[in-house]
């Protein structure tokens, strides 16, 4: 059990800056994120896209913004718990007990939900029949590639994951790559390689088809695919892999008894607290009259939520507002030597 002042859910820009603000006012926090890297949507959706509306930064990419935020909170040495997800919250004696999917446990007076539009999950096949084989022979990520040796593998998708795995597995498996159109969004070099392997029949490349059904009797045997014009083909397959990118799911957050407005959490704009005492929500996931889904709004929200957390973490102390330019206490926390 890790005892801390605040658990932040979400390591996107809003969560990171809130961590900074907690550090500045002398609180500790632990940060949990479902992705395997820090940065949230900025790093997952648009690492290379320039952002033009960060105050005093005329232009930066999602990756640069993330790296700068990581640099900014470095002095505080906060722990990140990546590839993990907060699954369960329980309130005991005014403390929140937080359990993650990987079995980590935290005890904290406050939780800040900075979860964007939810956690990133792989998009799955729309076919109901695929659910039966989910995790066994219908897969959306690969942990152990040796299971595919000498097997027939049908791979769906047109991005880098689909192309890279088709190339990799074609060495030791019978690979069919199926994509809904002729163009691929993966790296041009990979597309070129796929076309070469298709020409020499190493890979069976089928475009303008999508999944219709998976068939099997206990174990998976084949996958049925359909074209837009209604043609149907049956492909022998021991494994079916889908790489359609990631979607965002609210997931367990919806089950914590928080008021929800569509997929967002209403908050009070004084401290960004939700209807549950000690649970705050900031960034894209929170809503209030006039809410803008801007990174800069998330920064403001995080600064106020941090002060809201102070009340719970230090109930006997009075919060004193200080400027980073003037406060020697803050400079000590930042490890700044003058």
């Amino acid at each position: 059990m890790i005892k801390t002042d605040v658990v932040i859910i979400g390591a996107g820009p809003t969560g990171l800056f809130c961590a900074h603000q907690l550090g500045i006012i002398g609180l500790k926090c632990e940060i949990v994120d479902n992705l395997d890297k820090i940065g949230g949507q900025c790093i997952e959706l648009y690492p290379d896209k320039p952002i033009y509306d960060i105050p005093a930064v005329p232009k930066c990419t999602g990756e640069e913004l993330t790296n700068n935020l990581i640099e900014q909170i470095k002095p505080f040495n906060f722990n990140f718990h990546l590839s993990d997800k907060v699954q369960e919250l329980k309130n005991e004696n005014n403390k929140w007990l937080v359990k993650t999917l990987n079995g980590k446990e935290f005890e904290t007076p406050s939780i800040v939900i900075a979860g964007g539009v939810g956690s990133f999950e792989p998009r799955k096949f729309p076919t109901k029949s695929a659910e039966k084989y989910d995790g066994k022979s219908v897969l959306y990520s690969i942990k152990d590639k040796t299971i595919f040796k000498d097997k027939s593998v049908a791979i769906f998708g047109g991005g880098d994951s689909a192309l890279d795995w088709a190339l990799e597995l074609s060495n030791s498996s019978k690979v069919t790559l199926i994509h809904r159109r002729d163009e691929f969004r993966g790296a041009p070099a990979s597309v070129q390689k796929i076309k070469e392997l298709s020409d020499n029949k190493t890979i069976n490349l089928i475009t303008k088809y999508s999944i219709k059904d998976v068939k099997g009797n206990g174990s998976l045997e084949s996958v049925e695919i359909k074209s837009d014009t209604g043609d149907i083909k049956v492909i022998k397959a021991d494994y079916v892999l889908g790489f359609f990118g990631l979607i965002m799911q609210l997931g367990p957050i919806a089950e914590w008894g928080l008021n929800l407005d569509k997929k967002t959490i209403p908050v009070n704009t004084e401290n960004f607290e939700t209807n549950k005492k000690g649970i705050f929500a900031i960034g894209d996931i929170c809503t209030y009259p006039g809410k803008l889904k801007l990174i800069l709004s998330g920064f403001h929200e995080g600064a106020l939520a941090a002060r809201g957390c102070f009340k719970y973490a230090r109930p006997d102390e009075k919060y004193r507002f200080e400027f980073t330019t003037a406060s020697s206490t803050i400079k000590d926390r930042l490890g700044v030597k003058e």
Partner: protein
Amino acid sequence: MAKIKYIEFNGTEHEADVANGLSVMEGAIQNDIPGIDADCGGGMSCATCHVYINDDEWFKKLPEKEMGEDDMLDQAFEPKSNSRLSCQLIVSDDLDGLTVHMPEKQV
């Protein structure tokens, strides 16, 4: 201004007057029409405002897809050849009478 008809997967029809310059996605969100999520808020980075244009004439009449729209549609729920992202369809008088069909779900 254009009158846009949004038809949910279950057949429920909604009609909205959408001001020029807004996207078809925004027209749905502002009028509380279900079936379009728009998780990313119109940044063409999530594919949750996916619609079908079932009328072939209308599909041809719409402005062509820009780079990246088809890449996002690859990641949508059940994309078809008549799929569009409604955040990329900017409303003008020319779109008056457009009908879009929503997929079974967005995520």
